[in-house]
């Protein structure tokens, strides 16, 4: 296989408008060579549009897109040396699997022997050997998506583009294919840009996750950073399952330190080592964020919040208690076999070391 020295993708001040509606305000993003980047966000956040602009299927309204050292902004899709895998597979229905995979090479005038070698190689990598002479209609969903990936591999592109490739597969197959695509990336060592709306997929596959919302990048970081220090309320709420709990309240000065207060029931003192960074926000309306998995503490004394339990979800390793604290919905993770029952009011401990505080007015994280 031929190797490209650098296949870094750079978007500079790229915008996209459909008519008068600007769906992508100026966007900057650099994707490193051989990096596996996942664009994730709710539907309509501009992640697919961004991917399609890299592919050339959408023309950027302004700005510059570079792949490697080439400016591809005004190049048609075929000249960008990308391969794309679509959510609905987009196979050529009248061709066999082998013809599907080899069609691009055939069009480019590659010799028959070379096509056969490449197709056989792709079929071996993707376990499609037994199906090469079948039509796509005789394949299962997972096999069809593998054919689409095979078609992308033989192109030997500088960049692989995946547009929600696993969304049409059932849950079990999705997890298998997740691993397969990761293995493929390790094997081919090609830059991958991957779009999904599933944050679990994003977290499990990516070297770096780009969280997008309303056309903007909310945060771009490796999965653990996103999880441990989300930059704002949107990222905090989007990443993690079950998602983070939020309690609205106020940051108040308290016995020479700071505490978070919400109503009469909730008072969470801020640990001394974080007060320094939070002093400037004293008196402000803030939002406390705590993940369900950080509400179960084995030892020590911690501040608590009262939880009126509405439902219990025993998951095996642990149990989720779902309910409300004040008016805010709250999910707590409690030990498996916990005696808590619906309608109980229990005090849930908060791991102050791992809680997050956000400024209510802007949503920005405080004291990071």
């Amino acid at each position, binding site marked *: 296989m031929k190797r490209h020295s650098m296949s870094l993708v750079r978007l500079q001040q790229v915008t996209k408008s459909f008519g008068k509606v600007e769906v992508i305000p100026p966007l900057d993003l650099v994707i490193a060579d051989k990096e596996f980047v996942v664009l994730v966000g709710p539907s309509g956040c501009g992640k697919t549009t961004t991917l399609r602009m890299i*592919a050339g299927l959408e023309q950027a309204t302004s700005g510059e897109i570079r792949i490697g050292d080439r400016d591809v902004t005004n190049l*048609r899709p075929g000249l960008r040396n990308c391969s794309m895998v*679509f959510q*609905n597979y987009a*196979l050529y229905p009248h061709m066999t699997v082998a013809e599907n995979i080899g*069609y*691009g090479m055939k*069009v480019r005038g590659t010799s028959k022997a070379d096509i056969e070698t490449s197709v056989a190689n792709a079929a071996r990598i993707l376990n499609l050997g037994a199906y090469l002479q079948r039509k*796509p209609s005789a*394949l299962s969903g997972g096999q069809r998506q593998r054919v689409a990936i095979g078609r992308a591999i033989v192109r030997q592109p500088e960049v692989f583009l995946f547009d929600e490739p696993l969304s049409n597969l059932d849950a079990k197959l999705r997890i298998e294919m997740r691993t397969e695509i990761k293995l493929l990336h390790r094997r081919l060592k090609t830059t991958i840009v991957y779009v999904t709306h599933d944050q679990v997929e994003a977290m499990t596959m990516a070297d770096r996750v780009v969280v997008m919302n309303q056309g903007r990048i909310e945060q771009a970081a490796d999965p653990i950073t996103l999880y441990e220090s989300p930059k704002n309320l949107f990222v905090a709420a989007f990443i993690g399952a079950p998602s983070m709990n939020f309690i609205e309240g106020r940051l108040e000065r308290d016995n020479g330190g700071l505490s978070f207060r919400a109503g009469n029931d909730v008072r969470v003192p801020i640990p001394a080592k974080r007060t320094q960074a939070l002093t400037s926000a004293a008196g402000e309306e803030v939002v406390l964020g705590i993940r369900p998995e950080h509400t179960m503490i084995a030892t020590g004394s911690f501040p608590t919040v009262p939880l009126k339990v509405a439902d219990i979800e025993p998951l095996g390793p642990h149990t989720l208690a779902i309910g409300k604290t004040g008016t805010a919905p709250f999910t707590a993770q409690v030990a498996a076999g916990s005696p808590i029952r619906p309608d109980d009011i229990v005090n849930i401990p908060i791991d102050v070391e791992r809680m997050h505080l956000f400024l209510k007015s802007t949503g920005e994280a405080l004291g990071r």
Partner: protein
Amino acid sequence: MSVRNLKGNGRWWALAGCLLWLAFTFFPLYWVAITSFKSPLGVVGGPTYLPFVDFEPTLTAWRELLSGQRGQFYNTFMASTIIGLSASVIATAVGSMAAYALVRFTFEVKLLTGLIFVVVAFGGYLLGRHVAGFGQATSLIYAFIAALALAIGSSWIRLPGPILGNDDIVFWFVSQRMFPPIVAAFALFLMYTEMGKLGFKLVDTYTGLTFAYVAFSLPIVIWLMRDFFAALPIEVEEAAMVDNVPSWRIFFGIVVPMSKPGLIATFMITLAFVWNEFLFALFLTNSRWQTLPILVAGQNSQRGDEWWSISAAALVAIIPMVIMAGILSRLMRSGLLLGAIK
């Protein structure tokens, strides 16, 4: 809802209704078929219904038809076949390319450009005819060339006024089928005779009739194929675009095979239209390229109501289309898109 789901009496009523309708639609065909085997005396001597029972079938009408006593039968049959097939093939090919372009690309035509075309074409013709003193055909050709050149040229400059999109273009095509065909037939006949005076013989020629049929079939082809193409999943074409497959190859290698049922249906509809067309053939042909509908109609006007021979001629006009539809409907099976997506 299927007849199978009905229970008891309802089922029998439905079946009886269907059979009644079948008899209703089949009877005229049956009547034509048996009449073509009746002797002249058998036709005028009151109704008879069953061959070998009511009347003794005879091949007189068929013998007369096939021996050429009733007009140039073979010649007409061949003319109908050649013109029908070539006009349908050309119209389907050109029309589906136009339809594809109208589905996948955005066109913007300024209303003013269209106005320029119309004004220059008509004005130029009148000027050439009455002021410069050119012949009709000459001034027509000059005016249209000038109008086309000006219209194309004007689309490069920024013109004020509304901009027409793809839907307006499609409407323009379809609108050509809204006026009565006789309007176009007269005009076309005049234009063809004028062209004939210039040395391009178009009346009663293969080129002339085929061209007229192609032009008249295009709106329907474009309109039908546009829906077929619009229903294709665009991702399949996008995948090919990313794979650097050139546009013409995407069209012929991927889009056409995927829309085969639609193309065949459209071809069939066009063929039926051209095969049965009467008015244009009446105006634009007189002997060499006369088509079957003219021959059938001529049976009555030339020799009076000799129903046995009219029936034989009508059957000859019907049977090829039935066979064609039978063959092509096998290819029209749906499900070709299966496996492209999801």
